[in-house]
């Protein structure tokens, strides 16, 4: 089966006034459909750059990246944006929900971008992430951190993405709530979701099936 993510000899250089910075240096790896992977590495190792490239927020300086069978290098901004909307679900450390929208609207947002709203689907994914139904009409600020992260997971799942990209998903939660979120991730993975988690936390990495370590822009092991 075709890998859902394929990096071949990817280089990412940021041209800065003080001199070019090589964030990723000839990186190659593959992620198969249904994998649960963690990406670990010290600060400045290139984790965030890797996440940006996998999230189609940026394109490589050289090398090729294929996501769900599509080469992203020559895609226009509009194509990359549509690709993110349809194929990738993002989960952030700080939840990043929209404060002006209620929970149902937050979860439905990516659906609305696609041009169709199915409130029942939003309720379904909210039930799948075990959020109490009485909270659906609340705004994010009225929810706890753990509840907000569940909403963020639901928002990431609403368009049935090929890949879930999580950036320190438990970084802003206490250990108990963090564990419950990781258990939710494990369950989603068991149900077929491909999940990639960028983290510093070895406890989080323990939930995953494979760990990619990045050091100085290269894969260490």
């Amino acid at each position, binding site marked *: 089966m075709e890998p859902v993510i394929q990096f071949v000899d990817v280089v990412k250089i940021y041209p800065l006034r003080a001199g070019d910075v090589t964030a990723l240096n000839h990186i190659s790896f593959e992620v198969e459909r249904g994998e649960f992977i963690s990406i670990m590495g010290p600060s400045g190792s290139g984790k965030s750059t890797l996440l940006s490239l996998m999230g189609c927020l940026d394109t490589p300086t050289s090398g090729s990246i294929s996501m769900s069978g599509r080469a992203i290098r020559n895609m226009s*901004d509009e194509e990359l*944006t*549509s690709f993110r*909307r*349809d194929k990738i679900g993002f989960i952030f450390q700080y939840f990043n929900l*929209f404060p*002006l*929208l209620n929970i149902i609207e937050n979860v439905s947002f*990516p659906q609305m971008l696609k041009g169709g709203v199915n409130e029942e689907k939003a309720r379904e994914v909210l039930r799948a992430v075990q959020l109490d139904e009485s909270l659906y009409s609340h705004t994010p600020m009225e929810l706890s951190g753990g509840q907000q992260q569940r909403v963020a997971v639901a928002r990431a799942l609403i368009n049935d993405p090929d890949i879930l990209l999580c950036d320190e998903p438990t970084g802003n939660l206490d250990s108990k709530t963090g564990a419950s979120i990781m258990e939710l991730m494990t369950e989603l993975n068991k149900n077929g979701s491909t999940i990639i988690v960028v983290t510093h936390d070895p406890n989080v990495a323990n939930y995953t099936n494979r760990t990619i370590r990045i050091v100085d822009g290269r894969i260490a092991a």
Partner: protein
Amino acid sequence: MTAIFWEIAKRNIRIHMLRSTLAMLGIVIGVVAIASMGILGNSMVSMVSASLSSVGDSVIVTPYSGGGGGMGQGGGGGGSSSVSLKISDQNFQEIKRVVAPNVATPVYSTSDHMKIGVGSDDIVATIYALPTEDVPGIMKLQAGDYNDGNSGCLVGSTFAKDHNLKVGSRISIGTDGSKGTLRVTGIIEERGMSFDISTDNALVVTPEWFENAYDRNKDYDEVVVKVKNGDTATVKTNIEKQLNKQKDNKVVSVTDSKATLSSIYSTFGTVTTFVTAIGGISMIVAGVSIFNIMMMSVNERIKEIGIMRSIGTQKKEVMSMFIYEAAIIGVIGSIIGGVLSILAGYAVSALMLGSTKYLLTTANALSVVEGVTFGIVICLLCGIYPAWQAANLNPIDALRHE
């Protein structure tokens, strides 16, 4: 565009109500300034044209007073006035021939002392004399009849009102009534300002009485031509060609009332544009304020924009969200401004012109529409750059923004 962005724009305005209201207030003031200034200018033009339109078809011929040759042919006759610039009967006959079939009316005019009733104050007013048969073509009466005899006179409406005159009232003319007494036979309808003869504050008598009283003999002060055939400019040219044959020895000055009117209207038009432009300055200030709050709105929401972009929001959708915000402020502010400008136009017209009867006109409605449109356009223009900036933020940088 997705309805959610409209909803977000509305909610953002709502949670920043004070800031949005202040921006709206700027637009309200801008629209009111533009529209009410437009209304004032239009009302001024309407008012002046209402009082001038009746004389829009006249050509007025007066003795030439510029240069040095005015006295030549035109000065014949030797009137009693010390300023003896007159139009001779010969010249009048020439004018009559040149303008035919239009009617040329010879007019005498002077000012004199008069008294109304015994023991009344001495007043000074203008007295016109023109042939009885020509009077109905130039003025209409609101009461009484045209002169039917030598000792009758017509009085202007303002003069009649000021001195409480009625048909049948008597006026003694000259110091101590030396010129005799006239009986009011009719009261002339208000004519407003005019280029030919201003009757509102004057008396109109017969030429026979006038010639007798002031020792005049067919040496006229002016000739009024009512142009019913052809246009005033041609009539003017024909008179000048006939009477002012010699360039350095002109006999008459000819005024085309239509040309004068159009020049007056054009001056009023310029004044209206100028005052509206002054109103426009306040709109520009309002635009700067809209620009400012839109930039604030973008800066406060950089991270939100980053999230939106990362989860699949297109640049044009981000842009639409901010354009909607500017449009909501612009449309609400402009409509409120439009309504208030009608009230402001009423107040300004009442205070500055003393009349509001020219308020409900197409031109004024157009001024309000212009003000409202300008307000909306300014808001949209001032929203475009912040919206463009928001849409073009780098999603990675925007996501990292604290």
